[in-house]
């Protein structure tokens, strides 16, 4: 399997080349195009999992803001290629997992190899107050994990402490600790600094941030538009 990302960072597209028999699992609706050697199968869970477990996984994904169903694309008869894109403007990046785990902000998942298990995970009340959804995605296993951002993606090596606005988090290593708190030293910064809640990461590991905040974008546009009818 080979994954290339084109048109970064504004309108990134992931092009996945599969050898015969190889599989890529993608978020529902993410497929842009594919050649004739690719077949699609739609399900809620991984192959070989029971129906109930699959259903639970689908429901949990839906609570996390992802699609209930996922699509498995398999190259049959020969190698093939399939392309995927996220819904909004922004970037896409690939991370090779090797018996490792990354946490993803709930809408960041685009596609992954079959050896990566993506499950919704309760993030605790603290992420709820961060305004970015109650649930995060936990991606673990071995293989490529492809995720997307709103705006461009920047990778940061954390060694010690690092503070990120909750709306700008894309993904982070499992071994980073985090706590959600208010911005700045005092209540004045919190109330008037315009930053709301921030996430304080600590430890040693990698962190990916996005250069735009989708909630702020929605509020900016939404405030200028008539109500939904």
């Amino acid at each position, binding site marked *: 399997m080979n994954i290339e990302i*084109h*048109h970064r960072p*504004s*309108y*990134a*597209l992931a092009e996945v080349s599969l050898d015969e028999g190889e599989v890529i699992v993608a978020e*529902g*609706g993410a*497929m*842009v*195009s*594919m*050649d*004739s050697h*690719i*077949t*699609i*199968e*739609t399900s809620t869970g991984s192959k070989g999992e029971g129906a109930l477990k699959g259903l639970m996984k689908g429901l949990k994904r839906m609570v996390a803001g992802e*699609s*209930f*169903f996922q*699509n498995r694309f398999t190259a049959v008869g020969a190698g093939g290629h399939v*392309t995927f*894109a996220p*819904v*909004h*403007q922004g970037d896409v990046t690939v991370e090779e997992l090797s018996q490792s785990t990354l946490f993803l902000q709930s809408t960041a998942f685009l596609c992954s190899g079959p050896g990566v298990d993506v499950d919704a995970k309760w993030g605790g009340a603290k992420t709820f107050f961060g305004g970015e959804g109650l649930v995060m995605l936990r991606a673990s296993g071995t293989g490529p994990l492809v995720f997307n951002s709103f705006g461009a993606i920047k990778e940061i090596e954390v060694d010690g402490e690092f503070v990120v606005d909750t709306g700008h988090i894309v993904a982070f290593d499992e071994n980073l600790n985090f706590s959600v708190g208010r911005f700045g030293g005092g209540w004045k910064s919190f109330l008037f600094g315009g930053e709301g809640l921030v996430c304080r990461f600590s430890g040693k590991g990698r962190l990916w941030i996005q250069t735009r905040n*989708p*909630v702020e*974008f*929605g*509020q900016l*546009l*939404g*405030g200028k*538009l008539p*109500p*939904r009818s």
Partner: protein
Amino acid sequence: MRIEVEARPSYGMAVVHLEDGETFIAESGAMVAMSPAIDVATRFNGTGTGGVAGWVVAALTGLARKFFAGESLFVNEYLAKSGSQQVMVAPPLVGDVEHLSLEGNNITVQSTSYLGSTKNVNVSLVWGGFSMLFSKEGAFFLKCGGNGELVINSFGAIEKVTVDGSYTVDTGHVVAWEGDLNYQLGRAGSWKSTMLSGEGLVMNFSGQGTVWLQTRNLGSMLGWIRPQLPT
């Protein structure tokens, strides 16, 4: 005439350099800026042969394009009255612009992806077939033929794919394709996949030629924005 595309792929804009007497035709509303010695003529977005009958034909085809292909009723013709003039055109959506040269071949364009062309390009409305009525993108396309310059635009970046055999593209991601390719509207995978996968309808291309696709889908983007609006 020389056409350059700047600010790719996020905010593509075509800069059309015109010599004395040259003309460029663009969708109404597409003009960003232009130099002073250019005459603008606004006419119905259709082709008539002159006279009252010709005017009526032009008006009717313009109306057909507006209502069936979602295009504007009028187009603007930019005629250079001296040398070294330029007109800049851009689409309303964020995304890319691509300049293609036609040399007797045909390129069919998804109607919202047409930005402009030179006079010797024939642009005609073509019926995509009954099955296209089921796609959100509309049942009509613009078939561009002749010898001349064509400028198209996309939502997101434009990806060029060389098809040899068959190739499938989500209908919301199709920008344009070369005339030699055949296509059929279909569904992605089995019926279960069509109903549940979120992939919707696809166009199955076959033959040999180039397909241009866009890396974002306007329908999906609107679906993402809608829940963020105030209630």
